[in-house]
């Protein structure tokens, strides 16, 4: 199967052609927003970090911001810094440069204030937009897709309908040679043995078990009961009793194929097929991690309903809860409630989702894109000093 995509100078393929503005630090977020205002085709990242961070915490913020620049849905990049932050704009731009995409950086302190920075930035963006408009879509095999899977606002219909249906779509993508990312490690608790059994090697299986053991230890070390956070109150109202129940319903979405690799947060997969990315259960943290890892498109299942979208990638939302779909039609793209009602098979629904993925990858707008929903949140692993 093929879709219509954009080939990048480094050979990777995008499904969108964005010009991206990255504030390297929270202090330049306002300028980044001002630069991007009224510029059709430009998106900016609402980054709230980028200073007073050290070690792994700083590295993770940098890797995530750089990963968004490297993502093949992005045509060109303007990095906006303030000038004194400990994650300088120049460092981010230099890390994106090997992609051979045009990347520029400007700093507010050097240019002389926000207004001048906005004017200078807009001039650069206009050039980038003119170049972006020249690029045409071309036929691309599905094997070039890194497909992100996610579930949020789960209820009983997630495990019965939408996640198994998404799993059938994940299997189709892998059968076509593509890559599928499964994430949200905390929501594998209680189901990790099933995933570990499907690992390509015993080492990969052990990585899965070790990850879950780490997260569970962290949860217990807080002295709190993670049931306050996961399952969330909405999950419980929807009929989900425990994290194990949520997890068992959750892993369906990755499909049934062999697990080929485990990658850390915001790292790109190096294998085709099913890949596990270590992320929190937090919806936007994990979506951001998968996009920073190079995913071009996501399918997100929801029972209770959620508006989630990404600044640079389409997020197709599906629900097997007929009531939720009816109530939140402007947010949810596909209704698979017929699966729960026994009127459609999981396989049929999976094919329907797959067809929509191809259409959206080829340019059809997802509902979150139509609404301009651009959620961005980096998984923070340290304190700010």
């Amino acid at each position, binding site marked *: 199967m093929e879709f219509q995509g954009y080939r990048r100078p480094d050979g990777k393929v995008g499904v969108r052609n964005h010009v991206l503005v990255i504030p390297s630090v929270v202090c330049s977020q306002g300028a980044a927003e001002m630069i991007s205002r009224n510029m059709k085709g430009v998106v900016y990242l609402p980054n709230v970090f980028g200073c007073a961070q050290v070690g792994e915490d700083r590295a993770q913020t940098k890797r995530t911001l750089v990963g968004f620049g490297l993502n093949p849905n992005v045509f060109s990049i303007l990095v906006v810094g303030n000038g004194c932050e400990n994650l300088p704009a120049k460092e981010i731009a230099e890390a994106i440069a090997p992609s051979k995409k045009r990347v520029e950086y400007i700093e507010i302190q050097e240019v002389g204030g926000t207004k001048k920075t906005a004017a200078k930035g807009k001039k650069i963006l206009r050039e980038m937009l003119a170049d972006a408009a020249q690029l045409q879509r071309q036929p691309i095999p599905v094997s070039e897709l890194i497909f992100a899977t996610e579930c949020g606002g789960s*209820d*009983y*219909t997630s*495990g*019965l309908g939408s996640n198994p249906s998404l799993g059938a779509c994940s299997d189709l993508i892998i059968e076509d040679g593509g890559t599928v990312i499964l994430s949200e490690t*905390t929501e594998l*608790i*209680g*189901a990790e043995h*099933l995933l570990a059994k499907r690992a390509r090697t015993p080492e990969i299986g052990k990585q899965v078990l070790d990850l879950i053991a780490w997260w*569970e230890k962290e*949860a*217990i070390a807080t002295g709190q*009961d*993670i*049931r306050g956070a*996961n399952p969330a109150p909405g999950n*419980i109202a*929807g*009929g989900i*009793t*425990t*994290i*194990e*129940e949520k997890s*068992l*319903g959750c892993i369906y979405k990755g499909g049934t194929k062999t697990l080929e690799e485990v990658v850390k947060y915001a790292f790109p997969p190096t294998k085709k097929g099913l890949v596990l990315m270590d992320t929190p259960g937090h919806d936007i943290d994990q979506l951001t991690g998968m996009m920073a890892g190079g995913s071009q498109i996501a399918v997100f299942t929801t*029972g209770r309903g959620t508006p989630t979208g990404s600044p640079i990638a389409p997020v197709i939302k599906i629900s097997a809860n007929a009531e939720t779909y009816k109530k939140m039609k402007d947010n949810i793209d596909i209704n698979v409630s017929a699966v*729960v*009602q*026994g*009127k459609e*098979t999981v396989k049929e629904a999976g094919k329907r989702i797959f067809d929509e993925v191809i259409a959206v990858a080829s340019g059809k707008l997802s509902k979150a894109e139509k609404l301009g929903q651009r959620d961005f949140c980096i998984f923070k692993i340290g304190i700010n000093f």
Partner: protein
Amino acid sequence: MAARSKAVVINEKDNVATAVTPMKTGSTVSLEVQGRAEKIKLLSDIPMGHKFALRGIDQGADVIKYGEPIGRTTAAIAKGEHVHVHNVVSHRGRKEGA
């Protein structure tokens, strides 16, 4: 897929079913359990999406859904009774005995 009842049993090892429509105390639900047609009288109101016991489950025993344990009971649960956070705790992500 066969015509569905008002509740679904996902795996034949399961000792709970999931209601796909809200049901009242005292009503009877027909469903297929391990290939046999069964009728279960509900001892509680079951909101949509919530679970009820397919058979009696002892205190401290595993609750099975998707063919896997999803937690253990904190009280004995009778056949047809609501199974949720009031009588089940997770095995995971919390201190033992908490």
